[in-house]
């Protein structure tokens, strides 16, 4: 049995622990799972954003390449607009043998502001060198004889027309020269003034619409070679593309960069949209996880609370049970009474079920040097009320026994003091008066189990006249039996809890009692201990009181 002092201490521990759990529950600390969900969501978002960004970039660079090629085609298509007038003029010169009027008439359509050339001139080679035959110019100063001679010398060694970049003061011009081997002695020279804003006519074509561009003469992308551009600064970083188209004896190099999203605005915005949505979804998922985790924690907390309350209830039950047992022990004899010439042993086993106190008891009372009274009784039912009835009966019977009344007289006197209908209980009582020397006993029985007599190795139940239990109407008229027991006899009286077991007949319990007491060479206390251990188990519900008496001789 647990020490009574331990119970409150244990109960207090049970109250303290959940308080710590409460603090943990009410804290604002987020759940670990929500961080994991958030991290996973952000990771997925990052992958999606990176993928869409990469795809878009790839797409953009592909589109830029395509569009640059397209722009190159446009540029290429513009080349004949330069070459054709030059070759036409040359053919006319050959056919007209250098007629300046013919040249004038042809080229004046191409020369002028916002036209193909700012000046064009026809040259003839004779023995002393190159001579200008005719010139068409917006203003004469655009024609530069020195540069023309240089360009034509180059053109004589070139299978196509030649292109040079020349400076005229602050302005840059392109110098074209055409000499054909079949042209005999004639050459055409033309200049084109590069606009101050360096804007090119080709740039109006839709192929250039989404592009920044720069066109260089030749393959070298140096400022000196720059013909026209829409860049405020030449591109140094980012996506750009280049292509070259043949242009006379040189090439035009087109460098482009996208001025807008070539694939439209949506693909470019997708990474941002995915990113925004992903972050929002991750946060929502994390918040949901947080909510669910908190809900679960709350449920666990509730379950814990319920378990704790059960635990507390259990502790209270245990406590009350302890009180009940303490009370019952207080009502039973503090120590086994000493009867001269007798070995006396007692056992009290509280039932395993419920917390209510039972109504079982035993008494042994020395009456004089030889005689003693013994009582085993059982008040029906349980609880404090049953225990109260038991205490009243126990002390009443004890008093009558000490007064010297016979067992039948004791039962008769008590039968009027208990009423089943008013008290709610009846009581079975076995009262005996024995003589330690003569081994004579007188027994009276009010509805109680007959005691077991063990004579040597032969246990058998004694026959008594079983009267009505105390408290039941019709009680009274008890009859006693008197007999003299063999030497060294052992008498065992008990209450029903010992032999009454759910699911088996009472006779089985009684038989087991006989079996358990067959060997009586042990001390009486040991015999009773064996009886208890053989006949009870953890499932035993009822309280048990056992009284053993053994004559020493």
């Amino acid at each position, binding site marked *: 049995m647990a020490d009574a002092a331990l119970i409150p201490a244990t109960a207090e521990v049970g109250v303290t622990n959940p308080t710590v759990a409460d603090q943990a529950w009410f804290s604002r600390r987020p759940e670990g799972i929500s961080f994991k969900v958030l991290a996973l969501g952000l990771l997925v978002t990052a992958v999606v954003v990176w993928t869409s960004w990469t795809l878009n970039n790839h797409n953009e660079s592909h589109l830029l390449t395509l569009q640059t090629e397209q722009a190159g085609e446009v540029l290429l298509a513009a080349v004949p607009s330069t070459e054709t007038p030059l070759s036409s003029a040359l053919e006319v010169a050959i056919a007209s043998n250098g007629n300046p009027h013919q040249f004038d008439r042809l080229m004046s359509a191409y020369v002028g502001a916002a036209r193909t050339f700012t000046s064009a001139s026809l040259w003839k080679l004779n023995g002393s060198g190159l001579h200008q035959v005719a010139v068409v110019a917006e203003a004469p100063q655009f024609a530069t004889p020195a540069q023309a001679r240089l360009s034509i010398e180059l053109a004589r060694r070139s299978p196509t027309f030649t292109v040079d970049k020349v400076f005229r003061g602050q302005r840059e011009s392109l110098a074209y020269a055409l000499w054909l081997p079949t042209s005999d002695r004639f050459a055409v020279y033309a200049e084109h003034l590069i606009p101050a804003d360096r804007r090119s006519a080709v740039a109006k074509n839709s192929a250039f619409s989404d592009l920044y561009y720069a066109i260089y003469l030749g393959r070298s992308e140096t400022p000196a070679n720059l013909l026209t551009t829409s860049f405020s600064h030449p591109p140094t970083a980012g996506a750009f593309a280049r292509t070259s188209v043949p242009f006379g004896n040189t090439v035009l190099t087109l460098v482009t960069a996208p001025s807008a999203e070539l694939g439209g605005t949506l693909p470019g915005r997708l990474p941002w949209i995915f990113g925004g949505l992903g972050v929002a979804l991750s946060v929502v998922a994390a918040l949901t996880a947080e909510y669910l985790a908190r809900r679960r924690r709350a449920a666990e907390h509730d379950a814990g609370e319920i378990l704790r309350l059960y635990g507390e209830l259990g502790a209270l039950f245990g406590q009350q049970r302890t009180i009940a047992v303490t009370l019952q022990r207080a009502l039973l004899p503090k120590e086994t009474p000493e009867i001269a010439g007798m070995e006396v042993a007692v056992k009290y086993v509280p039932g395993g079920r419920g917390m209510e106190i039972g109504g079982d008891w035993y008494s042994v009372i020395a009456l004089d040097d030889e005689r003693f009274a013994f009582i085993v009784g059982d008040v*029906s039912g349980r609880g404090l009320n049953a225990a109260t009835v038991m205490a009243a009966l126990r002390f009443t019977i004890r008093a009558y026994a000490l007064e010297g009344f016979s067992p039948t007289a004791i039962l008769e006197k008590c039968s009027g003091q208990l009423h*089943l209908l008013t008290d709610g209980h*009846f009581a079975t009582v076995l009262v005996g008066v024995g003589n330690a020397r003569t081994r004579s006993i007188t027994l009276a*029985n009010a509805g*109680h*189990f007959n005691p077991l007599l063990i004579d040597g190795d032969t246990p058998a139940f004694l026959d008594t006249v079983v009267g009505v*239990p105390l408290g039941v*109407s*019709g009680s009274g008229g008890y009859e006693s039996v008197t007999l003299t027991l063999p030497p060294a006899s052992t008498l065992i009286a008990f209450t029903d809890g010992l032999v009454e077991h*759910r699911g088996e007949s009472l006779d089985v319990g009684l038989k087991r009692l006989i079996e358990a007491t067959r060997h009586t060479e042990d001390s009486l206390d040991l015999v009773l201990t064996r009886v208890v251990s053989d006949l009870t188990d953890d499932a035993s519900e009822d309280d048990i009181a056992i009284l053993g008496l053994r004559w020493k001789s």
Partner: protein
Amino acid sequence: MEELVDERGAVARLEEVTDALGSVVLKITGELDISNVGSIQAAIQATYGQGLDLIVFDLSEVSFMDSSGLAMLLALAERIGTVELRNPSGLVRRVIELTGVSGVFRIREIDLSQDA
């Protein structure tokens, strides 16, 4: 009919049957102990509390009865007058014998079940 279950799951069933002679018989089946005797008593009290001088129980299928169960039967006998115990099971019979209360009840071995 009433099912009375205690916390261990032990079941006692109180059932009102009519025998071949038309008498009302209360049949208790199962275990009759301190855990459910109160409910059974209340159920009987509610139905047969007044104006009876005889109550008939069929206890042929009572597998366990402790002193509280016996106390209930004894109390009914005192209150009503006659309690007839019809075909009590061996266990009930033994409890009644050992407690010396055979004389309190009218114990009858009789087969009046209708389907017999």
